């Protein structure tokens, strides 16, 4: 069995999900990567260090990559009787996983928090009903596609050397492959990387608005050297970019301290932050579900508690 890991290039480097998945999979035997992007030696070396034996490199230029990458992967695994194909939860990753499943008739097990290929079966664990219930599912076919949650596994370098790099020709899939990327925009945010930060200040709709209403979130993050995160309600309202969204459809964070400010604690938000070591919540509603996971809950107005906290920290 070969374990395939899908890797999308992000800022010239392998996606964090691909390094996490390779770290998990390298103990199982042969590992191969389909790398989609411009490509460079440092990126391939990083994949090798995390356990990739072979990197198949596909550069789709300005075409939207998913249909092309799915066709390329289907060609690469054709003929093999069993394969495990691993993906992260990002948009392109999910697009390729879905298309590959339809192309090869293989099932997709999504939202995986653990993957266990034992014997001739692959058992995938996921959490449903807002992370309250654990389900283990076995795939009954030889070729299985798994989409794993971010940070389900930690990325750790192994003792692998540089991988063999093989160029993959861009397949022709006709009209299905005809979507093109016209512009690329990066929405920068200041401060440390949200997923790596040891302190995260999460802001919710209770902050009341963008700009000056939101300012104490940014200020508090600045003072503590932390990163700013947000709920989907806030992202949808356009107060902050999607790259700050934490939760089921956003990023997963596990900082030392998470401070939830004006966040109700919907289950879709909780799945993205409930594994933080210490959770502090400020909410004016004593019944807010966020308090059920908080180590310290302050029932109060964010516009009173946060400025007081900021002054106290500034005075230190």
């Amino acid at each position, binding site marked *: 069995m070969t374990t395939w890991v899908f890797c999308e290039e992000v800022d010239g480097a392998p996606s964090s999900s691909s390094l996490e998945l390779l770290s998990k999979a390298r103990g199982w035997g042969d590992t191969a990567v389909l790398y989609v992007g411009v490509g460079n030696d440092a990126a391939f070396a990083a994949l090798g260090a995390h356990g990739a034996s072979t990197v198949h490199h596909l550069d789709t230029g300005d075409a939207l990559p998913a249909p092309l990458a799915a066709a390329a992967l289907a060609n690469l695994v054709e003929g093999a009787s069993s394969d495990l194909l691993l993906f992260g939860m990002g948009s392109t990753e999910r697009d390729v996983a879905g298309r590959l499943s339809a192309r090869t008739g293989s099932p997709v097990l999504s939202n995986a928090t653990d993957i266990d290929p034992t014997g001739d079966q692959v058992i995938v664990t996921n959490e449903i009903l807002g992370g309250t219930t654990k389900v283990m599912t076995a795939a009954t076919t030889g070729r299985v596609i798994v989409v794993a949650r971010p940070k389900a596994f930690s990325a750790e370098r192994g003792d692998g050397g540089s991988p063999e790099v093989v160029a993959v020709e861009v397949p022709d899939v006709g009209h299905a492959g005809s979507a093109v990327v016209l512009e690329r925009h990066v929405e920068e945010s200041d401060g440390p990387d949200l997923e790596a930060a040891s302190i995260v200040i999460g802001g919710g709709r209770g902050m009341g608005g963008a700009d000056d209403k939101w300012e104490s979130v940014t200020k508090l993050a600045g003072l503590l050297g932390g990163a700013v995160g947000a709920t989907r309600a806030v992202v949808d309202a356009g107060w902050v970019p999607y790259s700050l969204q934490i939760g089921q459809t956003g990023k997963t964070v596990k900082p030392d301290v998470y401070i939830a400010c004006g966040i109700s604690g919907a289950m879709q938000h909780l799945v993205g932050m409930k594994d933080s070591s210490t959770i502090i919540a400020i909410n004016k509603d004593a019944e807010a579900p966020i308090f059920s996971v908080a*180590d310290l809950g302050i*029932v109060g107005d964010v516009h009173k*508690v946060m400025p007081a906290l900021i002054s106290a920290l500034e005075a230190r």
Partner: protein
Amino acid sequence: MKIAVCVKQIPDPATPYELDPGTNFVARPDDQVLDDTDRYGVEVGLQLVEEIGEDATLTLVSMSPSGTLQGIRQALAMGADRAIIIDDGSLRGADALTTAKVLAAALKEDGFDLVIAGTESTDGYAGVMPQQLAELLDVPSLSFARKVERDGDKIRVERQTQAGYNVVEASLPALLTVTSGVVEPRYPNFKGIMQAKKKPVETKTCADLGVEPVSQQIIQSVEPIPARQAGEIVEDEGEGYLKIVAKLEEAKVI
């Protein structure tokens, strides 16, 4: 232009979900509601129909037990013209690929120029079905759209990415998946609710569509995850911030 919106009926998220002890599938009551996520797709479809005018129609496509059709009526009341429901006992607990095969067969039979779906559903949130569908229909997919524009027979979207967004374009036929930030869905008005009762709803089975459900996965076990212990909850009387300072000191981050 023929627009189809894939909508899911789900048990009301406001009520606690129960698993059928025999199969471990989520129990599906007769009364199911429209997945809130799919109101965005319906709204995007309706706005396109209004922009194009008389030549455009909006059909809902849903694989679900038809039950009372409460969820489908909600979407019809928003303004969709008609609905196709695939209801077949053999589809209970169907996996995403089976769902995609069933919807693809119904869409091919009915015809479409644009298919719209949500990025992930509220109850299942596997988030891969629309891409399986796009592949089976052999069309490009403009996924994770947070803004949608039409330009003749081209659709252009702002596609959400990990780092920001890309502007992406494809010509029809195509599939679109929309995020919840894309538009503000309308609430049905009284007239819409009355009209919805008379709009055509066709029901089909797997045999009608020539699809045979296969399942390639088995649930092995289901167990509760121990809940995190709640800590100290205090009412702020002006001193709440001191508690936070103390907690930050305890966590050794200040």
